[in-house]
């Protein structure tokens, strides 16, 4: 090791005695090990994840929903493209079923319209004076493949709308979705408000009618046995390593 603080190492190298080869070799080893190790860990994890037991969820498809008003629905931009909003608004019939994705693509088009909406209640139903708030998702996990438990049909984020359920409606909901459980799927009819004054200008549907289309379903996540075995082995190894390092540290 030299102390010359120069970036032009190659120019100076000739005038120096070469670093001892043994030490250089050790540096290389110290660099290669972590890279190889990391690669092995990543490959192992990927293999482990691929070995996870899978579950079939065809019985979670919600059927008999009214068709969507538009598919997929155009985007508009407030201010610079208000005509698109007007055009969309013109073709939505009263009470037609909308999807959350459609609405987000052009909220102005649906403001104040009477619509239908179907989806799964997730999280919890939050009771307030005169009713309750519910988050109702209409994504693929809610209506088609069920919660991401034991299967790998990934389809992106959850999407859904906030729904206000007045007293008399929210009592019909038995369970909301959470890990390992698809909540009640409900079909509602109500008024879509782009800036609901009772929700701090949030986008909501104020439901007037509610029907539970599908009851909640609990899905067992099958135990991933290979993962359990790997966990036990690694945990033992780690415990051993920690004990060993404590012993070494006392000596150090």
């Amino acid at each position, binding site marked *: 090791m030299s102390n010359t603080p120069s970036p032009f190492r190659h120019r100076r190298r000739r005038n120096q005695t070469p670093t001892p080869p043994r030490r250089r070799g050790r540096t290389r080893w110290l660099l290669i090990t972590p890279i190889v190790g990391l690669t092995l860990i990543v490959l192992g994890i990927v293999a482990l994840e691929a070995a996870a037991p899978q579950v079939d969820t065809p019985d979670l498809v919600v059927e008999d929903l009214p068709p969507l008003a538009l598919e997929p629905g155009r985007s508009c931009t407030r201010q610079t493209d208000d005509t698109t909003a007007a055009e969309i608004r013109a073709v939505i019939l009263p009470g037609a079923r909308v999807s959350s994705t459609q609405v987000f693509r052009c909220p102005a088009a649906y403001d104040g319209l009477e619509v239908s909406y179907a989806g799964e209640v*997730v999280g919890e139903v939050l009771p307030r004076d005169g009713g309750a708030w519910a988050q109702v998702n209409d994504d693929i996990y809610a209506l088609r493949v069920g919660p991401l438990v034991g299967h790998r049909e990934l389809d992106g984020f959850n999407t859904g709308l906030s729904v206000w359920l007045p007293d008399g409606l929210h009592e019909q909901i038995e369970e909301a979705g959470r890990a390992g459980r698809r909540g009640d799927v409900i079909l509602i009819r109500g008024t879509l408000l782009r800036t609901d004054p009772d929700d701090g200008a949030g986008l909501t549907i104020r439901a007037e009618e509610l029907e539970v289309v599908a009851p909640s379903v609990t899905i067992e996540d099958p135990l991933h046995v290979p993962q359990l075995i790997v966990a036990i082995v690694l945990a033992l190894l780690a415990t051993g390593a920690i004990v060993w390092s404590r012993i070494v540290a006392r000596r150090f």
Partner: protein
Amino acid sequence: MALRPGADDVRLIAFYLGKVLLGLGLVMLVPAVIAVAVQEWNAATAYVIGASLCLLIGAVSDARFATRRPLTWAHGMVIVALAWLIGAVFAAIPMYLSGRFGDPLAALFEAMSGLTTTGMSVINDLDHTPIADDVYRHLLQFAGGQGIVIVVLSLFAAGGSRVATLYVSEARDERILPNFIRTARFIFAVAGTFLVLGTAALFVALLSAGFTPGRALYHAINLFFASFDTGGFSVMQSSMIYYHSFAVEIVVMLLMIAGTLSFGLHFALWRGRPRDVFRHIEARTLAITSTLFFAVVCFGLLRAGTYDTLDGLVRKGLFTLVSAVSSTGHQVNVGETYLTDWGVLAPAAIVGAMAIGGMASSTAGGIKAVRVGIAFKTLLHDVKKILLPESALVVTTYHAGKRRILRDETSRAATTILLLFVVTYLLGAMVGLLYGEFDITQTLFESVSVGSNIGVSIGVVSPEMPRGLMAVYILQMWLGRLEYVAVFALLGYLFSLARGQAKAA
């Protein structure tokens, strides 16, 4: 640094990185225990695997590479830069095992996003995610925000003095107490106080929002981590929309503001010196820019007709702005509606606020108010110099704890980092445009959001996003958190290593 590093240097770095992994392993034990408690067995085994790997490697490096060699400044930089990278890789392991990410890159994105307190998420089906996974995601923000690196090192390393250098390289250069350990303890005291008070306040607000006590506590703790550490992850995909509660939003806003205050200003408040806060260049810059941006946001939202009530301007406009300035990323709107329903001006103002970000020496990201303030003072200084005869001495001062004279090196450092941030924002936006799926509003918004570790999303970041763009965003989060210097140091180090290796080969 231009010295060709030898085996000793590599051992030293490995030793400290091992310490970081030990810390991360301990963090992972928390969700492992919770998973067992709530009988989420697959999650439990995943966290045991992650924790075991971290602890195993940490313990081995601890035993094999133990050294009393002092840390140099260069070592500190390299360790910090690598710690965030390797930390994110290991943190991603249990995430990937959850089966909620399409590929390891997405899991790495999520882990880096949590550790850097960015809070952008690419998790599939968040609303049905096991409790252990949720807790872990939120805990990562706390670990990253309170500086896993520093904390771990300050706990594990024998003496505090030699790790103080790490503290500096993580861009938190304002040492508020002479002793490093005392500084760390103060930071913990502040975080602890806020943890208790903030969680309690959130608990009450959530109870009144209709939650059962158990769920209220669960949400309160997660929300606290996401807000005070300016992270921005959420338990539900709908983020703040889920709560439908002004009270919750107010507590969260206060926590976000607390999170973006620098430790120095927390110290001043703690000691009952509020005047120090109002005079501080960073507080002033943030107050002025935020007021201006809020005015523009309000004008934009009113003009576009998005909101026409005070309610809308405060609960949507102001909240989003605070979320952006504090670099938290909680959303009160669905991302896509910024594009479709916010007009053109308000999103631009949000981008501006995100680019500046919060205060240095906090968990906030972005260019940082202090740099913007100093760059502005530098401009004023240069203009004054133009206006005065050459012989005149121009002195510009600013307040930062005490009255300071603006020195050339300070100016230079501030503008250099500012420019680097701007260039990164633009390059990130350019890469986004390469895909052709997004327009410039979207790519600029998202690039600034990840580059500043904010986490407000206009919809580009999603589980299905192009993988190349995802890799670029991971890089931007890492660069933004480290504020470039440590990364450059790492690159220089690798370069000298490679040169050394090339000769030996």
